[in-house]
């Protein structure tokens, strides 16, 4: 990173977890500030101008989901949630509140860094890159063209809309609810079978092995993620 080092705030009440997260992030050239409580975390986020927030959901003073809602009132900074809870509903609540990604404890450092890099990269790239390439697929948003191995692929309007939504949020987990609302409308947020059928169509058309997708990934019980 030749630019000024990106600032990351780690909000986590366990010292040992903070410690290894910090050393891992510093290893890739981030400046890390730690916070033990949600209140402290919000203060840090307000003063340090972070590029990323790593947030534990089980904080002693406040619910992590509340933290995200508060933060989202004045900041669009990417948030990765760390959750020890196995319940998918907590992750969904955090994502719906505005978190960008989550990691279930325990997680490896490699996993953490991959997610952090993806979000930092996305932020650095800014909005509106009109071309995407993954696997042997190329998508040109300006021309509305999708090609696979040089051959045009026909997508229906719903499939195309779903794909562009996932591409625009590369690396970010989109919940079933968010996707259903954006593509089918607010009346269909609970009809997840629509989404599942259409993601299946996209995989059939774009993935080498639809049963073992590499790019259109399932976050079981939560939603989907596009991984370039």
């Amino acid at each position, binding site marked *: 990173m030749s630019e000024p080092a990106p600032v990351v705030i780690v909000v986590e009440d366990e010292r040992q977890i903070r410690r290894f997260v910090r050393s891992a992030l510093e290893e890739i050239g981030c400046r890390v500030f730690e916070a033990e409580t949600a209140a402290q975390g919000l203060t840090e986020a307000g003063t340090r101008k972070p590029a990323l927030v790593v947030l534990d959901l089980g904080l002693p003073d406040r619910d992590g989901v509340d933290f995200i809602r508060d933060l989202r009132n004045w900041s669009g900074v990417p948030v990765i949630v760390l959750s020890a*809870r196995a319940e998918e509903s907590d992750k969904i609540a955090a994502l719906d509140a505005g978190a960008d990604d989550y990691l279930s404890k325990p997680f490896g*450092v490699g996993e*953490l860094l991959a997610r952090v890099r993806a979000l930092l990269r996305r932020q650095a790239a800014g909005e509106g890159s009109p071309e995407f390439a993954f696997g042997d697929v190329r998508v040109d948003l300006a021309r509305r063209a999708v090609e696979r191995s040089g051959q045009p692929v026909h997508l229906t309007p719903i499939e195309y809309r779903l794909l562009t939504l996932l591409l625009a949020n590369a690396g970010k987990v989109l919940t079933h609810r968010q996707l259903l609302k954006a593509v089918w409308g607010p009346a269909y947020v609970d009809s997840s*079978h629509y989404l599942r059928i259409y993601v299946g169509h996209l995989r059939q058309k774009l993935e080498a092995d639809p049963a073992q997708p590499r790019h259109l990934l399932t976050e079981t019980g939560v939603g989907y993620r596009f991984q370039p």
Partner: protein
Amino acid sequence: MERPVTSARSAPLLPHGRWRGFAWSTAACLGTTLLASPLHELLDPANIVMLFLLTVVWVAVRLGRDPAVLAAFLSVASFDFFFVPPRFSLTVSDAQYLLTFAVMLTVALVIGQLTARLGLEARTAARREQQTRALYEMARDLSGAFAAEQVVAIAGSFVEENLSARMAAYLPDDAGVLNILAGPAGGSPAIDASLARVAFEQGDPIGPSRAASGPLVLYLPLRAAMRVRGVLAVALADPADELSAEQAGILDAVASLVAIASERLHFVAVAQDALLRVESERLRNTLLSAVSHDLRTPLTALVGLSDALILTGDALPASKRETAEAIRDEALRMNSVVSNLLDMARLQAGVVRLRKEWQPVEEVVGSSLKHMESRLQKHRVRTALQSDLPLLEFDAVLVERVLCNLVDNAVKYAPPDSEVAIEARRCEAGVEISVSDDGPGLAPGSESSIFEKFVRGQPESATSGVGLGLAICRAIVEAHGGSIRAENRPGGGARIAFTLPVGEAPALDAALIARLEGELP
């Protein structure tokens, strides 16, 4: 009400029946005659007639209709005999008196009739009012009752006091068995439990009827809005007593009030039960979450810290690096044991609520394989999913857990570089999903016992695991209404297959799809 009841005719008069009434009536006429005799010289016959009419009115008011009729005739006869010349004879010298007799008799009869009816109605109204008040008071008491015993006691004492009858209630318990609860004065030997059951099952009243020389017994089902809540059995105290229509009506009212009270108690119990269940479920969930948090937090630190050590790269000598890797791997294994234990606890505590959604099998297979990617590095994976499988309704997180456990199991026993195959196909029971490996297979006879808790496929091997994985798989599959079985493949290796039932998948809204497909860019 279609019920054989003796009608309550012009209600009881003065105590002890009608003969007493006639006697009093005769005595009243006699008294008037004696009173009027000394006044015979002073009074006009017309005024003596008035005295007799007064007597008839008194008899009608106090004694009722029939004694009044008797009094009317006696008065005319007495007037004729004692006061109309020639006296002490029924003959009449002046024919005009015949008119007097006729008018006197008519007036006496009419007045007697009207007065008697008025009195009867007043008495009936008073009695009705009293009964209504008693019923009202019972209803008020019932509304404050908080146990079935109380309800029966309140209704029982009402029936005993107002109808001089014995009452017992038959109330069903959760299993539908009728339990008898007698009123305060106890039940009656004339009450027959088998008749009560018939009334309960058919929901129709039985009786009043009497067995041999016993008292009248009546079985009234407690019909509430939702269902029959029991049976009231009422036996009249005196074997000779009959039941009036009015009394039957009161008993009906009692039965409805008891039915309403029972239903109210039932719903109170249901509400309390639900509250209790929610509370204990919440407690268990909180406990399991806390345990999960407390176990996973140190594991996260262990995995992360050893990982951080490994990633410091060349700074670490190879042997230390291996140590760090071993720490990380053991911590991860510990995590999977903890997950299995917690999952089993959740499944057994019944706190797992299936989040079923309609979805393709392909997706959960894909996500499971992605999840197990690192475990599968040394094996070849083959998927063979029938292409036209229907959508199935299942909890993706839990079914992913099943697949991960099965794949983990296959990797554990199959040698490196061998093939792990995941297949899915239609079968009779729905869709069958299987995981096969090229390992040593299952010990003969262990095909079903491996799904028991803490039983492992290869007891003496050094392969790790506490044997909860397959027990969890079975619990999850069975919660979905499917079944799981293990077998050895003909060519060697084990194959574990589970089925998920096929249901009626929701259709896509064709109009919506057409609109969106046409409208979106």
